[in-house]
């Protein structure tokens, strides 16, 4: 039923907010170890698509599966039964999510931000969680910030902590929702470097972004969305350099 080796499979997903249809039947497959970069103008549905993949947004129709398991639903016969919140939370521990506005917990130190989910959601012992958190902080270049509070850090540092926090659950899949859009231009590079490192280590991820250069360098697949549909997708060399659709051409001509 599922494509061989597909980590993420999105099938004819539709989603409306009130009378506004944001996703008008989206199909997307991302293989294990692949980096998919989603581009598109504001309001094209890229963020909503990303949020349906870890069920932060329910779909109206269609389905999403990660690593062969439906997200948010259970299939029985030809019906989809919505899962209980507890089961959805469990599924989310396998899917890391990095927000545009970081959403670090401001009242907890950097270390507590990272250890909170492994301890409370996975039941890991605190001591081990602290050790792995320190290792993750070293990996994102913030080993000396373990005891700082989020507001004492720059935006770029906060986003790197948020990435470490997502990695602490050892997810199968990482989702990035415009991870550099809230950053000062000179801080974008440090965050993209961390994401590039993860990509080179074979992490499966989907990145919604406006950074075309990043897409060209890191993406295995570039997905271009507009008006709630995927207009075209393919390797960066094709989509970015030889786009087939007028809409893709006009978008790229404005942002390049």
């Amino acid at each position, binding site marked *: 039923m599922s494509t061989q080796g597909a980590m993420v499979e999105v099938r004819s997903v539709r989603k409306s907010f009130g009378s506004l249809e944001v996703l008008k039947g989206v199909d997307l497959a991302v293989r294990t170890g692949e980096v998919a970069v989603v581009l598109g103008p504001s309001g094209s549905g890229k963020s909503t698509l990303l949020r349906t993949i*870890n069920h*932060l947004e329910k779909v109206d129709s269609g389905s999403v599966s990660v690593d062969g398991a439906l997200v948010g639903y259970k299939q029985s016969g030809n019906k989809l039964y919505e899962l209980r919140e507890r089961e959805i939370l469990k599924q989310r521990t396998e899917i890391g999510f990095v927000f545009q506005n970081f959403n670090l*917990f401001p009242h907890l130190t950097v270390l507590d931000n990272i250890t909170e989910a492994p301890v409370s959601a996975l039941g890991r012992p605190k001591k081990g969680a602290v050790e792995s958190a320190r290792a993750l902080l070293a990996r994102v270049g913030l080993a000396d910030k373990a005891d*700082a509070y989020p*507001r004492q850090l720059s935006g770029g540092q906060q986003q790197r902590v948020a990435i470490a926090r997502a990695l602490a659950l050892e997810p199968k899949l990482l989702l990035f929702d415009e991870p550099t859009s809230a950053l000062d231009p000179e801080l974008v590079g440090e965050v993209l470097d961390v994401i590039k490192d993860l990509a080179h280590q074979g992490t499966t991820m989907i990145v919604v972004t406006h950074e075309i250069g990043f897409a060209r360098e890191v993406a295995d697949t570039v997905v271009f969305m507009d008006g709630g549909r995927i207009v075209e997708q393919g390797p960066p060399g094709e989509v970015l350099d030889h786009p087939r659709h007028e809409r893709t051409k006009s978008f790229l001509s404005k942002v390049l």
Partner: protein
Amino acid sequence: MSLTSDPPVEQAAPQQAAPQRAGPPPADAPPALKVVPVRHPWRWAAIVVTAVLIAQFIHGLVTNPAWEWEVFAQFFTAETVLRAVWTTLQLTVYGTALGFALGIVLAFMRLSASPFLRWVAFGYIWAFRSIPLIVQLLFWFNLAYLYKRLDFGIPFGPGFFHFDTMGLVGAMGAAVLGLALHQAAYAAEIVRGGVLAVDGGQLEAAAALGIPRLRQLRRIVLPQAMRSILPNATNEVISLFKGTSIVSVMAIGELFYQVQVIYGRNGRVVPLLMVATAWYILLTTVLSVLQYYVERHFSKGATR
């Protein structure tokens, strides 16, 4: 802790300062301009007027014999008064603890996804905010008149065991019950306001990390909500503390009732009202100091 991660810049700063030689200013430099801050003459006038008014008031307190300070001194630490203070404190502590415990539950019911829970909480808050506290207290006090016996068993069917209402809900119990139920309605709205003030992204991040629901509320939402809950909650506690004087209608020996009893006997109304006033001021001050430290505890990681 520095705001940025650039220690080399901080170290370099003193070295940069050294080469700037402090030579004499060039001859054609413009004269240094002295900065004169804005003057506030009316502020001084207001201070003088206020000081005179306060001095007059204190002078009156000391010299006017009608205050009867020797009577005040005699009763301020009298045993009956101290016992009454203790009763007032008990009413406040129980009322606050039960009221806020129920209030937190009601607040999350009103915020829940279940329409049933939302309506139950809304109905409760509507009812208890609508009934004056004094009326409610009198109802609880007279519960035994309405229902002489409380039966537990099959609804509308036979009861298995029962209590005499009079024995179950004494005057003190009725007072605590009334204060707590009343307080819960207000506490619920204060807690709900605090929770709504927490950025929605916080719950979303907690949900995305798969943190269990109760843990999300206890560890992520409530500590942040506490910052906006605390000033309002302290207001409520202080207002409840002084509001306990209302249970004097139930002949409970709290501070205000006791003072009334004493001046009813000896006719020294003013000094005994001052005894009650002084105790209320003293304990409210303690609460305000406590508020400062509790608020400081919950402001970790905040910039203001």
